[in-house]
């Protein structure tokens, strides 16, 4: 008989691993991937492929030649970053810009801090915001999707996102109702299904919600951040809307247009850059929801999800310190 192993307890371990979590997130993104290819065609596949390969390549080369440590590109985390980065850019983005985004995401957003688990900010969002600020024109010229059912219009046509149309209209002095009555405005159903101009992965709330459901069932994410995020965004935008429905967008449109659902379920819930306790996660979600609406309503950009999440990422260590879990035996209540 061979020698027996001696180790401290516990001697059994859960099936869930870093890998299973990461690949679970990738599976959850598949519906949104299909939707993006459906509406934007082969261009969407091109962006996804370049972004994913770029992220994997940069992680591999940095780990192997710069850090000279173990290569962990098969843990699934770079794959998640690659898909998320692609989800956050328009489908006509030139290859070199995508690769630059991948380099910033992985190189600066992740590896410079020590790799997986050490990054304070969501790497995909670091890359996305870098691109948005550096290449505002390319990053905001959105190809028009084809119609929900039927033929597409030509690829060359670009147009503003739903939130862009609204912001432009409001700035021009129109009311929300006038803007939404326009025949070119996508409307609720198209925004739910994905027939709107926008970044690859954000267009269909329905596809993203399907993936989110999968992650919740598989216990990859918990409800705390999404519920707090959506709750605070709905309450805050709802108050504004009730004050003046002609000047403020209603909460449902806030949810369906732009990157809210993508951000809420796939980026705010990034475990590395969000708080660890349930209490902290709720604070994080509420903060991100408020900031998103503040930026959308009063900011220079029509969209605020990326900035809101990045700002809350910066607060994560503070939140972790301030919102400790409820200790057993801390509050003595008997009966």
């Amino acid at each position, binding site marked *: 008989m061979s020698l027996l*192993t001696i180790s401290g307890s516990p001697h059994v371990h859960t099936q869930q691993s*870093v890998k299973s979590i990461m690949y679970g997130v990738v599976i959850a993104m598949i519906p949104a991937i299909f939707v993006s290819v459906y509406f934007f065609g082969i261009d969407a596949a091109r962006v996804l492929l370049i972004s994913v390969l770029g992220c994997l390549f940069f992680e591999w080369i940095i780990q192997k030649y710069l850090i000279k440590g173990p290569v962990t590109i098969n843990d699934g985390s770079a794959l998640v970053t690659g898909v998320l980065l692609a989800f956050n850019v328009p489908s006509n983005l030139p290859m070199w810009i995508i690769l630059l985004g991948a380099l910033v995401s992985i190189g600066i957003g992740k590896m410079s801090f020590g790799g997986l688990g050490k990054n304070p900010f969501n790497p995909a969002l670091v890359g996305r915001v870098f691109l948005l600020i550096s290449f505002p024109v390319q990053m905001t010229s959105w190809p028009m999707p084809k119609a929900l059912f039927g033929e597409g219009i030509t690829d060359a046509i670009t147009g503003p996102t739903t939130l862009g149309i609204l912001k432009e209209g409001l700035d021009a002095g129109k009311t929300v109702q006038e803007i939404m009555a326009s025949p070119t405005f996508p409307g609720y159903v198209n925004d739910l299904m994905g027939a709107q101009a926008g970044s690859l992965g954000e267009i269909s709330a329905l596809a993203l919600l399907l993936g989110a459901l999968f992650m919740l069932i598989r216990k990859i994410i918990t409800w705390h951040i999404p519920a707090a995020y959506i709750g605070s965004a709905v309450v805050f935008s709802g108050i504004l809307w009730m004050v003046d429905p002609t000047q403020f967008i209603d909460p449902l449109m806030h949810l369906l247009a732009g990157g809210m659902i993508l951000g809420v379920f796939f980026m705010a819930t990034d*475990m590395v850059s969000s708080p660890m306790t349930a209490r902290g996660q709720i604070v994080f979600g509420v903060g991100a929801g408020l900031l998103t609406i503040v930026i959308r309503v009063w900011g220079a950009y029509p969209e605020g999800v990326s900035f809101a999440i990045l700002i809350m990422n910066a607060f994560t260590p503070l939140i972790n310190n301030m919102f400790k*879990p409820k200790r057993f035996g801390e509050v003595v209540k008997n009966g």
Partner: protein
Amino acid sequence: MKTFTLGGVHPEENKLSADKIIEVLPLPEKVYVPVSQSLGAPSKVVVEKGAMVKTGQLIAKGESFISANVHSPVSGKVVKVDDVIDSSGYKRQAVFIDVIGDEWEESIDRSPEIVSEITADRDTIIKKINALGVVGLGGATFPSHVKLMVPDGKKAEYLLINGVECEPYLTADHRLMLEKGEEMLIGISILKKALGVSKAFIGIESNKPDAIEHLKRLCANHQGIDVIPLKVKYPQGGEKQLIKAVVNREVPSGKLPIEVGCVVNNVGTALAVYEAIQKNKPLIERIVTVTGKSVAKPSNFMVRIGTPVSTLIEAAGGLPENTGKVISGGPMMGKALTSLEAPVVKGTSGILIMPAEESKRTQVLNCIRCGRCITACPMGLEPVLLAQLSENLLFERAEAERIMDCIECGSCHYTCPAGRPLLDYLRLGKNKTGLLIRNRVKK
């Protein structure tokens, strides 16, 4: 269904031996009886080399307040008093006895008849429990008489009986409740009398519906004892978790259950109390589950204390070919054995044999700060933070973050997707922090 509120995990139950009737293991050829089998000071050996002993004869005497007497589990000849490697992996003083026949002390009532009437008064009960070496059989092996002496100013309201058996694989308590239920209930009544409480609750997880039904039926004849079914969740058998689950009270940090009017005893302890008080039988045998996925014959054995683990494994079909680890206890809190000659002691609830492929730990990756360890911690601690503080030797901060509240249940390590050995760090941290606190008290 009731359960505790904070944290907890649900590992695969794997109760392979749940329907295996308790078998009396044939007497071994020799036994090694450690003199320190309970929490507290080691007992003093009172027999000499060469002496002949009877089954049930006192062989080591507990001399301090927290310590317990040890009795000879067999009749035979004392070969030597020497060190033996026990389940902790440390050498401990033990009495080595060669088994000759099976001659019991005359005072012990060996008839199968159940003695229901409780004639002993409170003081006699406590004295006898002390004299006959009864300790907590749930695992911590705290001397039982100490628990029954309620400190001045405190009052016991409830007696909680732990039939949870939340450790995967183990079924010893389950079988005991099914096969020795009546005796156990009398034992509970004795404990109630000693504590002066009118209410006892038996907490049992719902994965043992037969035990719940059986005891509920038997309880009809026993006043003031109720069965409380509990939702399956580890570590519900932890004293503080059980109290929270059954009577919804939280034992304050650093305090004992009596602080909230509770005393907790294991079902095995209740049976041992019955045997001590009604039958004059010292604690010399216990039920041990021998199990594992690769084990030919998963079993529940009635085993004399001091029997080498190897004897039990033989009786369960022998050590499987691909064995990678042998654990004394369950998979969550049990100890990996360094020697198969380690003796069964009062606290041994099971022997778990793990195949090689399940014996190695997974690769340790970077913490991804998912917070699953925090969600899993039944004490509301932050294992990730405590492990970091321990790793960096910041024990004052670890103390402030309440590292001493850790019950070492292993839920954090179990649940960590990065396979980080959180409990290893926490044990180190607890050890060093405890030292720090003791030194401070000394000054």
